[in-house]
C-alpha cells in the first residue's frame, strides 16, 4: 500500500465525497440552495431598508413638533416647558426627542457699536435676541466662548453666528447698544458685549428647524428675560420643541405615533398657543404607502421562497437519484437505514451550509452596493428592531430547506435495496381533479382574503407581524392555485404537431406519465406570475410619490425578485429537461441502431418542453395579474399597459425556451449517454 493513502475513512468524509464528487450537480445544488435563501432574504432586507429609509425621509422633512406661546417672564417660560414636557412624555413616551426650549424677543435695532454711532447700513438691520437651551451641543465655538447662563452684570454677554457677525462687520469683544421705549414716555438703552462667535455643527440638524439663524444674539435665559423687561416690540415667545427620529420611533411605532401625536396636538391647543406639526399627517400618509409597498414585496418574497424550495427539491431529487445506486449499495452492505440517511442528508446539508454563507454574502453585497449608489435606500437606516423579523424569516426558510432535504434524503433511502441496486424511476407528481380543485378553492380564498368584509379593520387592528402574515395570504393562495393548475393541466393538449411522428411521440410521453414535468411547469408558472406581478407593482405606483427611498426599494426588490425568480426557474427547467433528454436517449437508444432518426426524439422532447413552458407561462401571467389585483391598488391604465408588455416579454421568453428546447437535445450524443441514462 502506498504511503499517504492510509487516512481512515469517516462517515462524514464519505458524505462529503458523495455530495461533491459529481461536481456539476454539486454546483447546481449549491446554486439552488444559495438562491433559495438569498432571494427571499434579499427581498425582505430591501423591504426593511426601503421602509426605514422612507421613514427617515418622512421624519427628516416633517418630524418636528413644537408648541409656541408668549411668556412674559422666566417663570412662565419654565412653567410652559414643564407642562409641555409632561404632556409629551405622557402621550408619546420617548418617541419624541426634546430639542430643548427656546425663547426669543426683539427686534433689536443697534444704535452704537464699539461706543460709536452705528453706521446706517447696520441700523437698518434688525437682530433677534434668543435663548436656546443645549446650544453648546449643536455649535462649534470659533472665537471666545458662549455666554454663561444667568451671569448678569452691567452689560449682557452675547454670542452670535460668525456668518452673521461677518455680514454686519462685527467682531469678538464688540460692545453693542440698542434703545427701547421702556414704558410710556421713557427711553431705555440695552448694551451687550460679544463674547463668542459660533458656527453650526450641521446645517441639517433638526435643532435649527430647517434654517440656521444668522442675525441673532444668543444669551442666557435670565439675560433674555431681563432684556424683555425693556419692552421690545415683540414680547418674548417661548418655544418647546421636539423631533421624532427613526431610532426613537421605529417602523412598528410609526402608525401608533401618528395617532398619539394628533391627540397631543389637540390636547395642547389653546387660544394663546400655537402648535406646529405635520408629523401625524405625514406618518399616516407614509404608513399607507409603506403598507402597500411592503405587501407587494412580501407577496413576491413568498412566491420566490416557494419557487426556491421547489427548485431545490427538483435538484436534490435528481442529485439523490444519481446516488441511488450508491445509497442502495450501503444498505446492501448492511448499513442501517438511519446511517445511510445521515450520509445522504449530511452530504447535501454540508453543501447547503456553504450556500448559506454565500447567500448571506450576496445579501450583504447587494445592500452595500445599493447603499453606496446614493439611491436613497441605505443599510445604515436599518434599526435593531428590524433584525428579529428578518432573522426569523431567514430562519423559517432555512428550517423549511433543512426539513425538505431531510425528507428527500429519507425518501431516497426508505426502500429496501433492490438486488440490482437500481432505484425505482420517479413518476413525478400526479393528482386527480378533486385535490386540484380543492387546492384551487383554498388558493382563491387566500387571494380574496384582503378584500373580504372586515379584513381592512382586522388589518388595522392587527400587530405588524400578524399584518405581514395576513398580507402574504394572497401570494400563498396564488401558489396553491398554481399547484392545482399543474395537477389539472392537460399537457398533451398543448402539444403542437399532433399527427406527425414527433408530435405523437410527445403526446404519448405526456399521456403515459402526465406528472413527469410537473415540477418544471410549477417553477415556470410561479416565476412568470412573480414577474408579471412585479411589473404591475412597479408601474402601479404602489410606493406613491414623494418617497424616493420607498420607491427605489420597491423597484429594486421587484426587479431582483422577478429576474432572480425567472433565472432560477429557467435553470431548473433546463436541468429537468436535460435529465429528461438523457432518459429519452436511454429509452429509445436501441431504436437508433434500427433506423429511428435521433432528430425525431429531439423534436418530440422539444414539443414536450414547448407545451410545458407555454402552458406554464400563460397560466403564470394570468395568476400574476390576479395577484396584482388582490394585493395592489387598482392599477391605472399605465399599469395595465405595463402588464401587457410583461406578457409580451414572457411570450418572447417562451419562444426562447422553445428555441433552446429544440437545440439542446440535438447536442446530446446518444452513443455517449446510453450507458448513463
Amino acid at each position: 500500500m502506498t504511503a499517504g493513502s492510509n487516512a481512515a475513512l469517516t462517515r462524514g468524509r464519505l458524505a462529503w465525497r458523495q455530495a461533491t464528487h459529481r461536481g456539476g450537480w454539486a454546483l447546481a445544488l449549491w446554486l439552488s440552495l444559495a438562491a433559495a435563501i438569498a432571494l427571499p432574504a434579499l427581498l425582505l432586507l430591501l423591504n426593511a431598508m426601503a421602509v426605514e429609509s422612507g421613514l427617515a425621509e418622512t421624519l427628516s422633512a416633517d418630524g418636528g413638533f413644537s408648541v409656541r406661546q408668549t411668556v412674559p417672564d422666566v417663570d412662565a417660560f419654565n412653567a410652559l416647558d414643564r407642562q409641555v414636557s409632561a404632556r409629551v412624555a405622557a402621550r408619546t413616551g420617548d418617541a419624541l426627542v426634546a430639542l430643548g426650549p427656546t425663547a426669543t424677543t426683539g427686534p433689536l435695532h443697534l444704535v452704537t457699536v464699539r461706543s460709536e454711532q452705528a453706521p446706517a447700513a447696520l441700523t437698518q438691520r434688525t437682530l433677534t435676541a434668543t435663548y436656546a437651551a443645549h446650544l453648546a451641543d449643536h455649535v462649534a465655538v470659533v472665537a471666545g466662548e458662549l455666554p454663561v447662563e444667568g451671569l448678569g452684570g452691567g452689560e449682557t454677554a452675547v454670542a452670535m453666528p460668525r456668518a452673521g457677525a461677518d455680514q454686519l462687520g462685527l467682531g469678538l469683544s464688540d460692545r453693542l447698544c440698542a434703545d427701547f421705549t421702556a414704558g410710556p414716555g421713557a427711553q431705555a438703552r440695552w448694551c451687550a458685549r460679544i463674547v463668542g462667535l459660533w458656527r453650526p455643527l450641521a446645517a441639517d440638524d433638526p435643532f435649527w428647524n430647517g434654517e440656521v439663524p444668522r442675525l441673532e444674539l444668543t444669551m442666557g435665559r435670565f439675560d433674555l428675560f431681563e432684556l424683555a423687561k425693556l419692552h421690545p416690540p415683540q414680547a418674548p415667545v417661548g418655544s418647546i420643541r421636539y423631533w421624532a427620529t427613526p431610532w426613537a420611533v421605529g417602523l412598528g411605532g410609526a402608525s401608533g405615533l401618528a395617532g398619539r401625536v394628533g391627540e397631543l396636538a389637540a390636547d395642547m391647543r389653546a387660544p394663546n398657543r400655537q402648535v406646529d406639526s405635520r408629523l401625524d399627517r405625514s406618518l399616516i400618509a407614509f404608513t399607507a404607502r409603506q403598507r402597500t409597498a411592503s405587501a407587494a414585496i412580501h407577496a413576491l418574497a413568498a412566491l420566490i421562497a416557494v419557487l426556491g424550495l421547489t427548485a431545490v427539491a427538483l435538484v436534490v431529487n435528481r442529485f439523490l437519484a444519481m446516488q441511488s445506486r450508491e445509497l442502495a449499495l450501503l444498505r446492501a452492505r448492511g448499513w442501517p437505514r438511519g446511517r445511510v440517511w445521515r450520509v445522504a442528508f449530511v452530504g447535501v446539508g454540508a453543501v447547503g451550509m456553504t450556500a448559506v454563507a454565500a447567500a448571506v454574502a450576496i445579501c450583504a453585497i447587494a445592500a452595500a452596493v445599493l447603499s453606496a449608489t446614493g439611491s436613497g435606500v441605505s443599510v445604515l437606516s436599518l434599526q435593531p428592531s428590524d433584525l428579529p423579523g428578518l432573522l426569523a424569516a431567514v430562519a423559517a426558510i432555512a428550517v423549511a430547506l433543512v426539513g425538505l432535504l431531510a425528507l428527500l434524503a429519507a425518501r431516497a433511502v426508505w426502500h429496501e435495496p433492490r438486488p440490482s441496486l437500481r432505484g425505482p424511476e420517479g413518476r413525478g407528481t400526479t393528482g386527480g381533479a378533486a385535490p386540484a380543485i380543492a387546492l384551487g378553492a383554498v388558493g382563491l380564498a387566500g387571494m380574496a382574503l384582503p378584500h373580504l368584509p372586515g379584513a381592512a379593520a382586522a388589518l388595522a387592528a392587527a400587530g405588524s407581524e400578524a399584518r405581514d402574515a395576513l398580507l402574504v395570504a394572497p401570494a400563498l393562495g396564488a401558489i396553491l392555485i398554481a399547484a392545482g393548475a399543474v395537477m389539472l393541466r392537460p399537457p398533451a393538449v398543448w402539444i403542437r404537431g399532433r399527427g406527425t411522428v414527433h408530435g405523437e411521440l410527445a403526446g404519448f410521453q405526456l399521456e403515459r406519465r402526465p406528472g413527469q414535468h410537473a415540477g418544471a411547469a410549477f417553477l415556470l408558472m410561479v416565476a412568470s406570475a412573480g414577474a408579471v406581478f412585479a411589473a404591475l407593482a412597479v408601474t402601479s405606483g404602489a410606493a406613491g410619490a414623494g418617497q424616493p427611498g420607498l420607491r427605489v426599494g420597491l423597484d429594486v426588490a421587484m426587479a431582483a425578485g422577478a429576474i432572480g425568480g425567472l433565472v432560477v426557474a429557467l435553470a431548473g427547467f433546463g436541468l429537468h429537461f436535460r435529465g429528461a433528454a438523457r432518459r429519452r436517449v436511454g429509452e429509445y437508444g436501441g431504436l437508433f441502431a434500427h433506423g429511428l432518426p435521433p432528430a425525431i426524439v429531439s423534436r418530440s422532447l422539444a414539443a414536450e418542453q414547448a407545451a410545458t413552458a407555454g402552458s406554464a407561462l400563460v397560466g403564470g401571467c394570468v395568476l400574476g395579474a390576479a395577484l396584482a389585483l388582490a394585493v395592489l391598488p387598482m392599477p391605472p391604465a399605465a399599469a395595465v399597459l405595463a402588464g401587457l408588455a410583461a406578457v409580451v416579454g414572457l411570450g418572447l421568453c417562451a419562444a426562447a425556451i422553445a428555441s433552446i428546447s429544440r437545440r439542446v437535445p440535438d447536442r446530446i450524443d446518444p452513443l455517449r449517454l446510453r450507458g448513463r441514462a
Partner: protein
Amino acid sequence: MSATAPSLVSVSGLAHTYGVAGERVVALRRVDIELAAGERVAVMGRSGSGKTTLLNVLAALETPSRGRVAIGGHDLARLDRRRRDAYRRDVVGYVWQQPEDGLLPGLTVLENVLVPVIGSRHARPEDVAVAGRLLDAMRLGERAGDRPARLSAIETQRLAIAVALANRPQLLLADELTARLDWGVARELLGDLAALLGQLGAGAILVTHDPRVARYVDRVLLLRDGVTVPAPETGMTAGAAGR
C-alpha cells in the same frame, strides 16, 4: 473439508418467485444446499436457471418465498430489518456481476475497502492496516490512493472482492467473477482468492458459467430450472488450485 465441520449454509426446499411488470416469475423451485464452514462451492447453470436469484436470496437482498435458509445461524426468512442489516454486514460479502456496482466511485480504492467497516462503527487505525493487507493480497497495494475509475477490469474485480471481504464475512457470494476476464488473469484471480479465503477461513459460493472455475472450489452444484442437481466433487483445494 472435514466431515465434522460445522454447517455454515443450510438451505432446504428453497423456492422463490418475484414480480416483473405485474407477472410472477418462478426463479427457484427447489434448492437444497449444505455448506460447511470454510467450504467453497461453485454453482453452475444456464442463463435463467436462477443462479443470481439464489445469490440475492442468500445475501438477504430478497426474502425467500418458501423453504428454509439458514446461514451462520441466521434464519433468513425471519430476519427483521435490524438483524438483516447485521447479517449483510457481518455474515456475508457480495460481489456483484458488474463489480463496479459494489464500489463507490467518489472514494479511493482504500476507502472503498473501509466502507463496510464504518457501517457499524468508526474506522480504527488497525482497520486501515487490515484493509491494506487485503489490498496487498489482491495485488492492489500500489493502487490504494486511486479512484476505481482508473482501475482495469481485473483490478476492479479484485477490488470488489477486497471490499466484499473487508468485514471478514463467513461467506463470500460472488456472481460471475471471471465472466469479463480472459482465462489467464482469471486463473490468477481465482488462485489469489482461494488463498485469501483460506487465510480468512471463509466459505464461498461462486456463481459461474465457466466450468474451469470448478478447479478452484471444493464442490460444484448444478442449478437447472431453479432446482439444484448434485454434481461430482472436484477434489480441488486451494493449494491444488494454486499449482
